[in-house]
Each structure stands twice: as C-alpha cells, then as structure tokens.
C-alpha cells in the first residue's frame, strides 16, 4: 500500500512531463529529445526563485509556465519550423527533428553545466509529515501531486471543451484535413509545442520541491517521458496519464523490492512489453 501510494504520487509529475512531450510530438510532430532540459531549467529557476527571493514554488509556477511557453515558442519558430517546411515527408522530419533536438539537448545541458556546475542541488520546501492510511509521506510530494493533477485537469478542459483545444486535437489526427476545415495548422502546431514546453516546465518546478537535481539529469526524464508517451499512444491524454501511473508504480515497486539501481530496467521491461503487444498504445486502435 505504501509502495502504491508513493508510486502514484511520483506518477503525477511524470504525467505532466509526458503530457508536454505528447503535445509536442503528437500535434507539432517534433520528437523533442531536449524536453528533459526544459525540465531541468525549470528546476533551477524554481530553486533560484525560492532561495533568492523566497518565492513559493507554487507561486513560481505562474512565472515559470509563461516563461517556458515563450522560450519554447521562440525555439519552435526559429529552429524547428524551418525543418517542418523543408521536410519532404514524415520520416525526413523525424530524423531532422531528432538530430536538431539532440543539438538543443547538448547545447542547453552544456550551458547549464557551465552556469550552475555539475553538482546536485535541492532545497527544503514543505518537508513535513502527512499521514495517509497510517503511513506518512512528505507533504511536498502530496502538494506536487495535487498541483500536477490540477494542471492536467486544466489541460483536459482546454483540449476537450474549447475551440482552440479542439483544433489542436484535429491537427494531431490529420494535419492535411485540419487545413481543409480552416484550421491554421502552422500556428496551432507552434502553440502546441510551446504549451508542451510549459507543461514540462511545470513538471520540473514541481519535481524540484522534493527531488535533488543536477544539470545533467534531463536525459533520464526525457527517456521516461518518451516511454510513457509511447505506452499511452502518441497524442493521447488519457493514455499518457494511465501510462504514467503504471510507470510510477512499477518503478517504485522495483526500487523498494529489488534494487534502486534497476529503475531504468523496470521502465524498459514495460517498454518491451508495449512494443511487443500494443505498439499503438494502451488505448490506441490498430492502424487499418
């Protein structure tokens, strides 16, 4: 039970990061491998706001999310949109975007290492006990989970209850047809990419409240987010949330029952199962 709840709490932030990636890949068609660096940057900004200006990380989200939105919008317009225009087919865009975001990954990571050094950092925020069903958990983890759930709920509302969100889902299904019903595909894709970056940054700011972070840990989070996205099916919100839950719980299970050094192995075992049995994602339909 203890493991289950820890796993669920962990999965809240995983879900946010994966939702960011699934928007970027599902709608904007950019496989953003530098996604983890957005997360780490958000960790550092949250750290800086809290230690430097005593700004509560939850309030800091109000600064971090719009900031990440703008930065990701600029990255998309400057660096990635030319690739979208240049690509002759989907495969070409995939290879180009993978290589370009690798470049971004290393560039950002290198800049952060130069700026902040390689050591681990953390700060104490709400490190109090909170009891659920007789076991105690860190209050910061619970707050992070609730905040993540609220943000995911807001995203769901946006995508399923507003015109803009519906347009975004239409582009995810088929950009060419979306164009025919008067949706500005290029603009929608740019906004989806920026929104994805903002979500990931929120995940990063929340993670920094209970996790020690350093400048080079982004890749691991990108990896996990990618696997969640594929498990859930590209562009699928429900799938991503369910996959994040499965990943968070199985990771906590392996870490507490077998060995904390094997969490990635657990992730990969899930990944292989998905590839072998449901490559289209948990809720995905087989391509006809």
């Amino acid at each position, binding site marked *: 039970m203890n493991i289950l709840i820890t796993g669920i709490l962990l999965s809240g932030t995983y879900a946010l990061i994966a939702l960011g990636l699934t928007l970027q890949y599902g709608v904007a068609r950019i496989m953003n491998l530098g996604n983890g660096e957005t997360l780490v940057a958000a960790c550092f900004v949250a750290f800086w706001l809290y230690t430097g200006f005593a700004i509560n990380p939850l309030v800091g989200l109000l600064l971090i999310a719009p900031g990440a939105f703008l930065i990701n919008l600029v990255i998309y317009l400057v660096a990635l949109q030319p690739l979208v225009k240049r690509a002759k087919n989907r495969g070409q865009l995939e290879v180009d975007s993978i290589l370009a975001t690798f470049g971004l990954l*290393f560039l950002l990571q290198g800049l952060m290492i130069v700026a902040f050094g390689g050591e681990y950092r953390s700060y104490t925020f709400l490190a109090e006990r909170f009891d659920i069903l007789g076991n105690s958990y860190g209050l910061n983890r619970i707050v992070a989970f609730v905040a993540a759930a609220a943000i995911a709920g807001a995203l769901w509302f946006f995508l399923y209850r507003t015109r803009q969100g519906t347009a975004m889902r239409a582009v995810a299904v088929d950009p060419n047809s979306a164009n025919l019903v008067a949706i500005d595909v290029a603009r929608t894709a740019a906004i989806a990419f920026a929104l994805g970056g903002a979500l990931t940054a929120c995940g990063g700011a929340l993670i920094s409240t209970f996790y020690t972070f350093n400048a080079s840990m982004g890749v691991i989070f990108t990896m996990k987010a990618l696997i969640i996205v594929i498990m859930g099916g590209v562009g699928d919100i429900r799938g991503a949330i369910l996959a994040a839950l499965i990943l968070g719980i199985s990771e906590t299970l392996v870490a507490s029952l077998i060995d904390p*050094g094997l969490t990635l192995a657990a992730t990969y075992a899930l990944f292989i199962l998905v590839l072998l049995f449901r490559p289209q994602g948990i809720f995905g339909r087989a391509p006809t």
Partner: protein
Amino acid sequence: MTPFTNDELKWLGAGAILFAVAALLPLVDQGFYLSLSVNIMLYAALCTAWALFSGPTHYVSLATAAFYGLGTYTVGLGIDAMPYPLLLAIAALIGAALAGLVGAATLRISGVYFVIFTFGLAELVRQLVTWTQTKFATAIGLYVFTDLFEQHIYWMLVALTAAVFLTAFLINRSRLGFAMQIIGNDETVARHVGIDTARSKIVLFMISGAFIAVAGAIMAPRYSYIEPPSAFNPMISFLVVIMALLGGTKRLWGPLVGVIPFTILMDQVSARFPNHTMIVIGLAFLAIVYLIPNGVTGLLEQARARWKARAARMGQEKAA
C-alpha cells in the same frame, strides 16, 4: 557472386595500399601521434560500422555504447580464463545477439521506436551489469592485464577497420545491399517487390553490432581498469553519430571524412576546455542539421555535379 569489375578491383587495390600505409605509423611515432591515431582508427571502425546500418535505413542508432561496453566487458571477464583471440570472437557473437534482440523488438515497427529504444540501451545494459556485479561478485571494476601495447591495439584496429570496409563493400554488391538500397528509398515499394524488410534490417544491424563489440574488446587492454560508467559511456554513441553524419553516409568512405577532423577537434577541446565539450557537441548536431544535411561528401558531390554541368555547358557553347 558476380565477378569484380575493373573499377571495383582498382578501388580494392587502392584501399589495400592505404591500409598498409596506415599500418606503418607505429614505426614512425610511438607517443602522441600514435595515441591520437588509435582514437582515429577506433572511431573510423565504429563510424563505418554504424553507417553500415544507419546509412541506408536512416535510423539513428544510439546503441553504439551498449555494444562497445559489452565487448569491453567480455574481455574484462574472460581475460584470465580464455585466450584473447577467442574473446574477440565471443564479443562479436554477444554484440550480434544483442543487436538481434533489439532489432526483433523494434525494427518490425516504425523507426522512431528504434531510436528511442537505443537511446537508453547503453544505460540499461550498464544498470544490469552493475547490478549483477554487485549481486554476484565482490568488486565493480575489473582489471585487464595483457602484454599488448599501444601499437598492437593500433594494428588490430587497422585490421578491424579494413574488415569493416571490406564487409561493407561486399554487402553493397550483394542481394542484401540491393535490398537495403530499395528499403532506404521507399520501404513500401521494398515490401511490394517481396523483400523481407524486417529481416534484412535485423541482419544488417547484427553485423554492425558485432563489429562495434569487437572494437570494444580490442580497446579493453588499453583501459586496464574497466568499470561500468567508463565502458558504457553514452558519449561514444553520440560522437559516432556526429562524426558519421558530418562525413556523410552515402559513400563508404564518407564517415572517415568526419572522423579525422572531429577526433582531433574533440581531443583539443577536452584538453583545453573540458567544461565546454557538451556545447561543442550540441553545436555540431545543429550544424549537421542546418548547414550540411548530407555531410561533407554530400557537399563535395554537389560541387562536382555543378562543375560537370558547367563543363558540359561550356562544351556546348564551344560546339555552337
């Protein structure tokens, strides 16, 4: 097998002479240049083996470090029990087996899954190796003591690179190579003319993986102390991708064009600005995508095509 044409024989002869000249280097210098050349030869072998698979398929494989580390570990674990040449053969088998497993899981589906899977593969293998070692053995590191010196390693790498080149050359003129060409151009067409696309890709990936594992096994005596973080260094995978794409993967010798300058550049950067290696790698990736998408050989070929077109136009004008 079809007999060699005159042109092909010329290329083979020129290649043999070049490798023979390269093998003479340890007689000239035993210090800095030899050690730099070991790195160049290593990456020449790795990049050509990488391009063997990733060139025609356009699948960016990041599994290099996993194969390389497994090769190193094979030697580390077996050096006290078995003769070294046997270990090289075992490393090749292990590399091929891992490539076969990864290929069977991912290459039947789309290319993105393959990239993502190989992205974390080295880290996965590293975790498994570390875990088994802490569980079943006492120490995490391994010592490798042999009577092989730098020049022996260099000669072995030259031989390996030559073997990779020869294999790639033979594959290119075989049925498998022809099949890969069609798959690379249009996979749907390939399937419709009766090519088993998944099988061809898996076989090619296994050959590539085996060569990379052997390269790791050859390098093991140079490290003398092997531990998981250095053997499964993910940087190896990324450097190989950059160098191969920088040179260009359309021609057999393309990766070589990227390997030589970039190895020297990385050597200088890591010696003088160790904190900035990441930034250099990031810029290199961006340069490849935005400035030279077809690699240096692509640029050369474009220039040659333009020059030929101009020569042809001049000829016409003269005739008229």
